[in-house]
Each structure stands twice: as C-alpha cells, then as structure tokens.
C-alpha cells in the first residue's frame, strides 16, 4: 500500500514535466486559448464590415498579398478579416453548446443518482437511446426539422451532447455515492440537499472540468462539419466551417480561401484539446482521490 503511494508521487511529477518539457506547452497553450477567447469577443468589432461581407467580384480569388494577408475568396471578400470576424460564431457557439449540455447533463445525472433505482433505470435507458444517435446524424435530423441555421445547429448539438456528460457524471457520482464518507454523512442525519451539495457534487464535478476543454475543441470541429454539410451557419456568415464550404469549389484555383479557415478551426481545436490534456494531468480525479 505504502509503496504504491510513494510510487505514484514521483510518477505524477514526471508526467507534468514530460509534457511541459517538450515545448513549454503548459505556458503556450493557456496563452493561445486566452487569445482565442479575446478574439471571439472583439473579433466582429475590429474587423471592417466591408472587407468581411461586401462582395467585390473584381477582387475575387486574389492570392495572399500585403493588401489581403490571406487572399480573398470567390466573392472578393478578405479571408483574413472574415476569419477574425467569424471567430465569434465559431467559438462562442461552442462555449454555449458545451455549457448548455453540461448543465443538462448535471441535472440528468443528479436525478439518476438521487431518484433511486427505478428513476436511475429509466433515466439511463433514455440516455442510452439518445446515445444511439451519432451527433452529426442527430444534428442533421434536428436541423432538418427546425430548418438549417446556426441556432438550430447549436440546439441540435446541445441535444446530442448531454447524454455523454450525463452518463459520465452519473458513473462518477455513483462511485462517489459508494464512498464511505457518504454513508458517514447519511448516518449523521445530513439532508438530501446537503448531501448532494456538500458531499457528492464537490467530489464528482472535477471530471467535468477536465472534460470541458476537450469538449470545446470537439464541438468546434463538429459545428464546422455541420456548416459544411449545409445545416449550420448559412452564407454569408463568416463562420469558419461555412467559409470552407463556400470555398470548396475553388480549391484548385484558390486553395487559401478554403485552407485558411480550416486551419483556424484546427488551431482552435488543437489549443483546446491540449488545454484539456493539461487539465487532465493537473486534475486527474482518479489519482487525486487517493
């Protein structure tokens, strides 16, 4: 027992160092994420409206130059400024989606945990059914029902995201519930509400902290995909996925118009994905709980 403990302590330190050691990732990633968030907030304010939205056929498909850093698209709009302006719809929608389904997931998991065996069984069957829909397919269905737009894509993704969170959190909460300290609180006469708020949730939610960043990265990717198949943001939106779609037919003549926004998505997903990994190492609940 004791040697496992002493073995874990040094190993944990080594993991952190291995990740930071490579490229100072631990410093760069949070900065990258912070910059992206700032961009999402101020992007639409600083990007000149004309460069982003006004068609200018004369200027179409210009290669990157001093005037247009990332070139122009088929309608002569400036790709660089469109990416800046589009950060908001891409990133903030993702944050909204993840927050939305996390809240839903926490609610459902709490109901399943507190409601006793039968409620748990029913809730988990519903979760299983909902999980059987692959996210993109489900979003296609919802978007088909609600009509294609960025907001129906957001709604669709909130509706597809919660079951994963609910199932994960329920598992963790079940495990927390089986810990002796919960029994200890119950035999002390602690009320259900207090049990949930002071004992179960504080010892379960850290799993979401870890999941959160990775979720944002994934959501950005799927949201872009939805725009790409035509059920997400619609033209002339500068949402990044929609930008790739708009430029896919001219990829042979003007590759920059499709490459640049896709690269923006990849970079953002990468930043949040790495942040998720760093949080994982920092907060890994399984290791810390010992």
């Amino acid at each position, binding site marked *: 027992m004791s040697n496992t403990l002493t073995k874990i302590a040094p190993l944990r330190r080594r993991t952190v160092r291995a990740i930071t050691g490579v490229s100072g990732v631990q410093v760069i990633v949070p900065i990258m994420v912070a910059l992206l968030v700032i961009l999402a907030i101020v992007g639409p304010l600083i990007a000149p409206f004309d460069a982003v939205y006004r068609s200018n056929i004369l200027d179409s498909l210009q290669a990157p130059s001093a005037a247009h850093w990332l070139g122009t698209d088929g309608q002569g709009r400036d790709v660089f400024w469109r990416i800046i302006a589009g950060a908001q719809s891409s990133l903030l929608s993702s944050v909204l989606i993840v927050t939305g389904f996390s809240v839903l997931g926490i609610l459902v998991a709490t109901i399943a945990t507190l409601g006793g065996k039968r409620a748990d069984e029913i809730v988990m069957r519903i979760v299983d059914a909902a999980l059987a829909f692959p996210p993109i*397919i489900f979003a296609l269905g919802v978007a088909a029902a609600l009509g294609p737009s960025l907001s129906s894509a957001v709604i669709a993704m909130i509706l597809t995201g919660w079951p994963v969170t609910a199932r994960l959190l329920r598992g963790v909460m079940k495990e927390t519930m089986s810990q002796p300290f919960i029994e200890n609180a119950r035999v002390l006469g602690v009320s259900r509400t207090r049990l949930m708020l002071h004992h179960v949730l504080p010892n379960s939610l850290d799993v979401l902290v870890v999941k959160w960043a990775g979720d944002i990265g994934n959501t950005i990717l799927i949201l872009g995909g939805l725009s790409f198949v035509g059920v997400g943001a619609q033209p002339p939106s500068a949402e990044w996925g929609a930008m*790739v779609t708009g430029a896919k037919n001219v990829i042979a003549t003007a590759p920059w118009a499709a490459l640049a926004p896709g690269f923006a998505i990849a970079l953002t997903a990468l930043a949040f994905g790495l942040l998720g990994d760093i949080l994982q190492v920092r907060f890994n609940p399984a290791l810390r709980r010992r």
Partner: protein
Amino acid sequence: MANNSPARQTAVFLVRKAVSSVITLIGLSMFVFLMVKLIPGDEARVAAGENATPAQVEAVRKSLGLDQPFFVQLLQFFGRLLHGDLGTSITTHQSVLQGIEQVMPQTIELVVLAIIIIISVVTPLATLSALRRDGATDVAIKLFVILSAAMPTFWLALLLQYLLGTQIGIVPISGRLSRQFNIPTQTGAVVVDSLLAGNPLAAWDGLQHLIVPAIVLALPFGAQLYRILRAELIQVLSREHLTVARAKGVPQRQLVWRHVLPNSIGPGITLVGIQFGAMTGAAVLVEGVFGLVGVGSYLTNAVAQKDTFAVLGGVLVIGVLVVVSNYVVDVLQLIRDPRLRAGQLG
C-alpha cells in the same frame, strides 16, 4: 448450484442485454416520432412536399393518420415501423427504407475499412506509448494523435483530395471504381462485389478509391481509441497480476501479448462499437467530398431537398445500426471475459 452454471449465466446476460437493446430501440423510435411532432408548421404539408396542393395535403393527412389523437398516432407510427415503413421520399417518391438499403452497404464498407485501419494502427501505437510512458516516443505519438484529432474532417478531406489527387495524383480521389471495370451489384459494397465477381483487379481499384476517405474518416476516431487504450494499458500495467507474472519470469513480449493486451482491450472494444455508428454519421462529411455514394450523401441530399422523412428515416436506421453494434460488442466482451460468463460483472 446448477442454477448458477456458466451456461445459464451467459443466457441471463444475453437476454438481459437483448431486453435493454429492445427498450433502447423503442426509446430511439420515440425520439424520432417526437422530432417529427416538433417540426414547426404543418406536418402533413411537410410530408406532402412544398409544392403540394391543399387537396394533396389533406390526402396525406388522412393517409398518415395525422387527424387522429396523439397516442393513436404514436401507435400507428410504431405499427408502420414494424412493417419497415419509414415513409416515402418526397423527391424520389421511393420508399425511404429502400433508398437507404441501396446506399448503406457502401457506407458500411467505408466504415469497416476505416475501423480496420484504426485498430491496426492504434493498437501498436498505444502499446508503445504505454510501455514507454512519458518517454520521448510516448510524447511524440501523443502529439501526432492530438494533431490529427484537431483536423476538421471535411477540411482534411478537401485538403488531401487537393494534394494527393490534383497535385500529386498517386491515388484516385473521386468515385468508387474506375470506369473500365463493370461489376454486377450483389451486396452493394464495391470491393466485396468485385471479389465475388472474381475480379481482384477491380477489388484493388475499389480499395484504392476508398483508402483516402477511410484514412480521413479514421483519424479523429483513431485518436479517441488511442486515448482510451493507452489509459487502460497504463492501468493494466500497474496491476498486481502483472508483477506476479514478471516475478514468475514471463519475458516482456509474452507479458504484453498474453497478460497486458487481452486485459486492456475491453473499453476499446466498447468504444469501437459506439464508433461504428458515429463513423456512419461522420461519413456524411467525407462521402460528398470524395464523390462516394452512401448514407452520408443520401442524407446530405435529403437535407438540401428538405426531404424531412428521408432524413429522419436515415437517422432511425443509423440508430438501429448503433444498437445492433452495441449488442455485438456485448457478446464480444462475453467471449473475452470469463467473469462475465459467470455473471460476476456487469
């Protein structure tokens, strides 16, 4: 004691999982039904198509029983499902189920190829990573995986098509089969049909057409599998029975093959089962770009045509596929783990 025999426990396990699969299927259908009900506007009008006359709309309303009370409608909906009636496409006027049946094998072929790629690449990578935990190899593999998971699928598809097809031209980048081959359709999956027709050249050609889309499709899912497999491997590597195996002189190679891998692949198998459905969905992003016919392109077209019933029918079929593949996974786990056969876990 006969009551607790392994055979009986196995049967109990299989029946229990089957029952829960059926319940999931019912729930799934309810979801789709509710989604239809949630469509803003008049359902009959949607079903009849945008250009239908008021009389046509009323006829559809009658035939679908939309003038009936909610629960009657729900029952009728289930009744139709049991007959395999997923409605009729408003664009092709073909049964939705038939339409999907025609394209499904091709998507499954693509997904299966992608899964083969994932398993054969990820397993050695994850094993290497776990064995060299936190070493340079591990970090390099991890970075590669994180990078490939961050690429938007549709964008990568475009990019590869542009680079490999247009710029370099090493593999065919569009369609399923080169024009010189003519293969009779039997299963609907090109490579399989070619082999059935005794034409290995055509099969090779079909495979070449599929390989790039399959790799693109495989990347993000491979990253998921890598993470879960690596984590599980590391966990299993720290288990006591491995120390015991080492203490009795089992060499490293045998340790990995006999004691580590079989004990680690459980969550991976479950994940691949779930991914089977998710990849069918993600095929939407790939098929269009590479000019492949499949469920993905079927659904994309349906969405573009506002062919609501075709979309929901597709959603339901894929949902069923997921439930079935999850059941297959449960059976695989049963074969793998004797404790499940004895009814001790799960």
